[in-house]
């Protein structure tokens, strides 16, 4: 090997390095896929105006004005047809017993179905608004059920929790509510 214009070792290895980098990128994507959660862009902004009729006779409906003043509240977006929501009901009841006001919005729900759901899983809600066309979700940046939003006394959205509030997340939610008091 004594050619005059010998390419440098660096240039020879470059394509291999690029290929290895590409493989590494694919591997990361396969083993640690990016989260598919869509986070609301409304955190720190005012709760938009809404006025939803009562979803069940035993609880009043929910309007934006109901969520002002007093202590921070939890706005829970749920539905009777949502299976994980049933698993979340106990944690919401626990929060209610700890003095948290939990307001619910039932998405695309029927009154009969909702009554069965509440009878079976408990009713931790102070108010339940009915939203048969998911409009509130587009206003507050929610993309599924269940989702919970911490709303402070001035009506500002402070935190979004995507998915079920698991038993070990109750303390975290309480901390977020406490944070929202300031």
């Amino acid at each position, binding site marked *: 090997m004594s050619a005059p214009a010998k390419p440098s070792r660096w240039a020879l290895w470059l394509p291999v390095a690029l290929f290895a980098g590409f493989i590494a990128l694919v591997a990361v994507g396969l083993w640690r896929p990016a989260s598919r959660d869509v986070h*609301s*862009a409304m955190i720190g902004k005012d709760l938009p105006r809404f006025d939803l009729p009562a979803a069940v006779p035993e609880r009043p409906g929910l309007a934006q004005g109901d969520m002002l003043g007093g202590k921070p509240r939890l706005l829970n977006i749920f539905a009777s047809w949502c*299976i994980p929501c049933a698993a979340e009901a106990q944690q919401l009841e626990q929060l209610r017993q700890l003095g948290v006001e939990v307001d619910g919005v039932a*998405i*695309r*729900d029927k009154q009969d179905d909702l009554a069965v759901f509440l009878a079976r899983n408990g009713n931790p809600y102070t108010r339940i608004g009915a939203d048969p*066309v*998911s409009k509130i979700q587009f206003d507050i940046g929610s*993309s599924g059920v269940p989702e919970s939003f911490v709303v402070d006394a001035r009506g500002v959205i402070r935190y979004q929790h995507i998915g079920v509030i698991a038993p070990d997340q109750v303390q975290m939610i309480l901390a977020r509510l406490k944070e929202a008091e300031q």
Partner: protein
Amino acid sequence: MRRAAFALLLAAAALPVAAQDKLPPAPYAYTQLEDPAQEARAKALMETLRCLQCQGQSIADSDAPIAGDMRSQVRLKIKAGDDPEAIRAWLVQSYGDYVSYAPRLTDATWPLFAAPLILLGLAIVLLRRRFGGKGA
């Protein structure tokens, strides 16, 4: 045996999908607007809005209930005379840029727009160096 168990597992996993809401779709989820011009505007917008549940699809393509509800909202707003870009801005305000397929020029995206121009400029310089002056 194993295959049957697997099939059963798949069937069980499919249940929640079948158990989704029983409400009829929102008024304009599957119904076009009466005015063809308005419908065309709504369609063009819906094709560039992301379905939040089936994230590779636009709301125009998706049969997810939330996509149907979003189509209905979009059509109602178009019907009320709203500008399509104002409707897009409303959704971007709630969900961020992710909900829109139409890229915007922002602090984070400008390199995407600038890269082709920079590469083109580089190519012109390189080609000039290599072939320039020959004809002149």
